[in-house]
């Protein structure tokens, strides 16, 4: 069990929300999605690979089988699911100080949400409601979402370059090639294994892969 796989940390947080208030959150989500500038902080945070918020109605929890008794829940729940760089302990500060009002808006109607600043009550609230990742598969352990996005851009640019410039005379070809390098200059980061962000997670990984100390 580890919340870390490759360059990603998986976070699942499920928090109770009064069922008669969920319409407000749904409205907030809808507004945010239709008006992308409200999410620009989240999108600019290059440490975040992915983030999603979902409301689960109190009668909406799945049952494995009709014979499983239905639960009577007092609350609906908000599921927050995210993959990001590093670990929660390392990056809680970056979330909190970059987008405190966004976090407060999304969690505002959740039961006992403490606000994002000061930091310790927020950190504890998330940790308390976090469901640790029992199984975590990462198809590209050496890639963060920035690496994937860069690779996609370079691939597309190279194909276009090949189509447009492959048959040009040397001088023009060089010009086009230099222009390609200039256009792609922020997408050439090396892709190598992740730094070790947690000694305990690293110990788990080494035992699992039977890497000697």
């Amino acid at each position, binding site marked *: 069990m580890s919340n870390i796989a490759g360059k990603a940390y998986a976070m699942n947080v499920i928090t109770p929300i009064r069922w008669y208030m969920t319409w407000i959150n749904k409205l907030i989500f809808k507004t945010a999605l239709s008006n992308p500038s409200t999410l620009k902080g989240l999108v600019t945070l290059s440490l975040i690979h992915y983030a999603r918020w979902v409301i689960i109605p109190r009668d909406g929890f799945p049952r494995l089988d009709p014979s499983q008794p239905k639960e009577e829940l007092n609350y609906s729940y908000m599921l927050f699911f995210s993959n990001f760089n590093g670990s929660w302990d*390392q990056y809680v500060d*970056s979330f909190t*100080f970059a*987008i405190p009002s966004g976090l407060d808006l999304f969690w505002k109607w959740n039961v006992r949400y403490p606000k994002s600043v*000061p*930091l310790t009550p927020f950190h504890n609230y998330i940790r308390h409601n976090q469901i640790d990742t029992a199984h975590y598969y990462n198809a590209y352990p050496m890639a963060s979402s920035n690496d994937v996005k860069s690779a996609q851009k370079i691939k597309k640019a190279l194909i276009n370059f090949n189509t447009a410039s492959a048959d040009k005379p040397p001088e023009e070809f060089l010009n086009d090639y230099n222009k390609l390098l200039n256009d792609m*200059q*922020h997408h050439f980061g090396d892709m190598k294994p992740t730094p070790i962000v947690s000694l305990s997670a690293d110990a788990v990984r080494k035992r699992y892969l039977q890497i000697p100390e």
Partner: protein
Amino acid sequence: MTQQLDLSDIQGNVIKAYGRYNFQKARYLFLRIDDGEKGRKFIGAITTKVTSALPWGKPGDGSAPPIPQATTNVAFTFNGLQALEIPTASQRGFPEDFIMGMAKRKDILGDDGPSDPANWDKVWKEKVHVWISINGQSIDAVKKRYDWIQEQIEASNGGVVLLTGHRGEKGEDSLPYQDASVLYDATGMPVPKEHFGYTDGIGDPVFEGQTNVAARVLGRGKLMRDGTWLPLATGEFLLGHVDEAMEYPKTAPSPWLLAHNGTFMVYRKLHENVGTFNRFLDEQSQIFDGSKEMLAAKFAGRWRDNGAPVVHAPDDVGKAEWDRRYAAADDAGKKKMLTDFTYNEDIHGAKCPFSAHLRRINPRGSLEFGVSNAYDTPGALVNRRRILRRGLPYGEVKDPARDDGNHGIIFMALNADIQRQFEFVQQQWINYANDFKEGNDKEVLLGNHDANNPGKVVLAAEPGSGKPPHFVSNIPRLVETRGGDYFFIPSITALKLIAGGIVDPT
């Protein structure tokens, strides 16, 4: 100023970079405590000479004590606090990073290969409990204080042992101390340089409670949305004070008096591979469109000769222009030119590369990547990652073509939370670059470059210019860790409590 610090309680090295007060020489001692009671008595004796952060007066004006010939400061490892027998309940309050110590954090810090603890000076294989620093106006003043400390060790009657095992100038490997010194130019004048030739120690953070904040805060505090600078919260650098998260640092042990006005120190002996650096710079500048000095400046974010920030002096022509303005400026103007800048006008890194040392350790507002008002405040990702830097170069470069001499930097970082501040910067920003959208590209100068799989950085060109960026490839390991540990610098009150054996967290 909203905060008045008790400067008589805070150790002087926390607030003052002694080098700025003409302390050109330093000596660092590491000790082991073999007997708790004798050890406490020894600490009590040393405490009588510990230098506080009180301001010094000018000679003869009588308002404050004048600058002393030598200063003394003390700090402890976790094992040292145990050896001094502070209560278990107090020990438990210390953070995990400090309890483990630096060697065991090597995987976090990237201290691998030549930087692995197996290759450190022998002293780091000993049980290091106490750090004592002496800074002197002259080497004689340092020696005099050193002799006095040796007398106290003698008087401890076996309770305290001065550890040997530092590498020295003549190939020794068992010196009982680490000496450090400013470097001197050809005329014998002290210069604020290190062995690669860079001008060092310009932009230390400024926090609430320091004196003369208004004059120093530009470029050194926290950047606000309106472009002004405010001092950082005291609690980023001193325990027992409110920090940027509007709470007291969580890393503080109990009782309050043990933690209050104390801080944590990272001590690192960093060897500089001068020969490799000079060769690498020569080779790389052959294929670089600009002078060798310009390339050196792109590595650091400052020009080597006078520390001119590359963002305002991006090439050889820009540097000449900057130098003219610098020469014409008065003292205050010169300081402002060195520190007061952001990367707002250089959001793509065409002037100061993303990989430059300066931009990596303090990105200022640039992690918003030019997206207007992306975060609550421009420094949202930076303000919790700042460190105070102390220290001096050590050794002498006798042959600039060789790596194997005794030369480097004694680097000390002071912060309230080693994991959140120093370790984060070292790991995420120096040895990794996802936050800068540069993948695994490490910082050129300090990165733990791997000889078998060497890295590169990209020096961006002006976007849309059609010019290719410059690739700096096959970067060798330029700096190697030769030792170090994590220390707690208590307040002077806390020193007295520890020495008296009266720390009580009840």
